[in-house]
């Protein structure tokens, strides 16, 4: 029996619950030499501002223990070039495409959405309200419930497509932020974006990143991501999309168990360009091995703690 990996987010049906995370999968086209884009649940393309963006000066990356700090600063082609040059190819590749929407201010988010709303071939928008690499000191709308709710509400009102609010882990109370996104009308939340971080070169006594601060991703952050997904899933009724450090099918299963309906794979794509399809396959194998007919049956099934507990 082949396990059924099909995933229903309510507003969107996916072949399987494995999506490629924004900023780690380019515009998708870089990966067509390695894999079929139709083999994964979907791809979230690199963050899009309205116009083309320079991004931050290099160095933009630092490798850390089990992790990666980046301060790319959302270099990108802008929506017009994306619609003209990229989207037709993605449509041809039969990819389920989610656009990652950015803005220097609230108005820009809306302008990006209004432009993309006129294009075909997009399944949803993921609002990147949580990028720590653009404003000073890692500030972003997803740090406060009010700014989260208001921005989501504006985008939702402007959009003909479903809205996924991508949340920041750099907060005291993720449940509160997730609830604010829901209150603003988000169709789903995805989390986590990267953790605001600093790396220093002790010899030069300078930051390793030109941007000083950057965002930490990769296996190092998985335990934090899993906790936040668990807390967010308990706080909202809309679907939760989980990510942060997923490198294997079993990692993906853990996020489903914690309450995510789908997951995104980020940094792992850099090490293994076919990580998304491999993880989908491994998830299928995991389900088969454990006798789970549908991967959806895993969602939100975390049992009680206390194995190892004695009866007292």
């Amino acid at each position, binding site marked *: 029996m082949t396990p059924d990996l099909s995933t229903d987010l309510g507003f969107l049906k996916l072949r399987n619950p494995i999506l490629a995370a924004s900023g*780690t999968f380019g515009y998708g086209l870089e990966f067509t030499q390695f894999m079929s884009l139709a083999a994964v649940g979907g791809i979230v393309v690199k963050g899009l501002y309205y116009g083309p963006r320079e991004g931050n000066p290099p160095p933009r*990356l630092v490798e850390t223990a089990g992790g990666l700090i980046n301060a790319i600063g959302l270099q990108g082609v802008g929506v017009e070039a994306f619609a003209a040059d990229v989207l037709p190819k993605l449509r041809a590749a039969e990819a389920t495409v989610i656009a990652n929407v950015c803005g220097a201010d609230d108005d820009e988010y809306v302008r990006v959405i209004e432009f993309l709303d006129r294009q075909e071939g997009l399944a949803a928008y993921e609002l990147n309200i949580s990028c720590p690499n653009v404003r000073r000191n890692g500030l972003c709308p997803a740090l406060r419930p009010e700014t989260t709710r208001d921005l989501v509400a504006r985008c939702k009102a402007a959009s003909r497509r479903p809205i996924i609010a991508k949340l920041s882990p750099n907060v005291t109370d993720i449940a509160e932020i997730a609830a604010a996104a829901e209150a603003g009308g988000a169709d789903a939340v995805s989390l986590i974006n990267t953790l605001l971080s600093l790396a220093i070169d002790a010899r030069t006594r300078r930051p390793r990143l030109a941007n000083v601060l950057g965002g930490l991703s990769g296996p190092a952050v998985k335990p934090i991501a899993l906790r936040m997904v668990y807390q967010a899933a308990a706080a909202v009724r809309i679907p939760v999309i989980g990510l942060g450090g997923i490198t294997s099918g079993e990692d993906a299963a853990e996020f489903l168990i914690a309450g995510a309906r789908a997951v995104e794979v980020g940094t792992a794509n850099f090490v293994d360009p076919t990580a998304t399809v491999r993880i989908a396959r491994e998830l299928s194998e995991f389900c088969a091995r454990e006798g789970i007919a549908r991967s959806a049956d895993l969602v939100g099934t975390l049992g009680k703690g206390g194995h190892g507990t004695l009866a007292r």
Partner: protein
Amino acid sequence: MRQEPAARIALRQSWDDYVLLRLEAPDVAAEARPGQFLMVRVGETLDPLLRRPISLHAREGGSLEIFFQVAGRGTALLAEKEEGETLDILGPLGRGFDLEADFHGRRAVLVGGGRGIAPLFYLGRELRAKGADVKVLYGGRSLRDLPVRDKFAADGLDIACATDDGSFGRPGFVTGLLEAEIARRAPDALFVCGPDPMMRAAAGIAAAGRIPAQISLESLMGCGFGACWGCVKRIVRGDGGRWRKICEDGPVFPAGEILWEGAE
């Protein structure tokens, strides 16, 4: 461009902190061109997390050689690999050197500094096969930094060396050797790989002599195939300079396209 998760190490040689590995990887080798590189997994666990970029040093039938210097943790782990073990590699990556022009009877000078010599062996052979008259200039701090000098000569490639400390060849930087070489006979094309200051100086010399030069850049690489936007450098293509991906648009660029870093 392929992933070969288990390329067998058929040969390992080492000199101090320099190591050469020959990898059996027919599918990757079949697509390889000089100036391209591999992304190599240096460990089996999640630390180090990322692959490391290493140039193609030679192609021998279905095998590829890499030649590298221990620069840090990742290359130190790679240096521990032994014959018979396997390596997980991704490649060939990047565009490599532009060898479209007709090199027949043309004089090509290849300038390598330290580990930057790595891609020039493969390149030198290929240029010779295209009928070029090849001269290799190889510089290092000291004699011990020139471990593959005899390999070039043994292969019939004309090579001259320079060491900063004068322990072998011409004393001084390899750029001094380049200037002398140009004074002797102006090359038709320059190919340069080495530390940034050396490449920058070589680019200056090339510009002054109006010699077309191709420069192979290094950069910190997250992925090696264009997905992370981590490897950018300022490249000018009639646009005043933009951050371009070294892995995808390079690593080799015409010298004139490179905007060198302000601070050195």
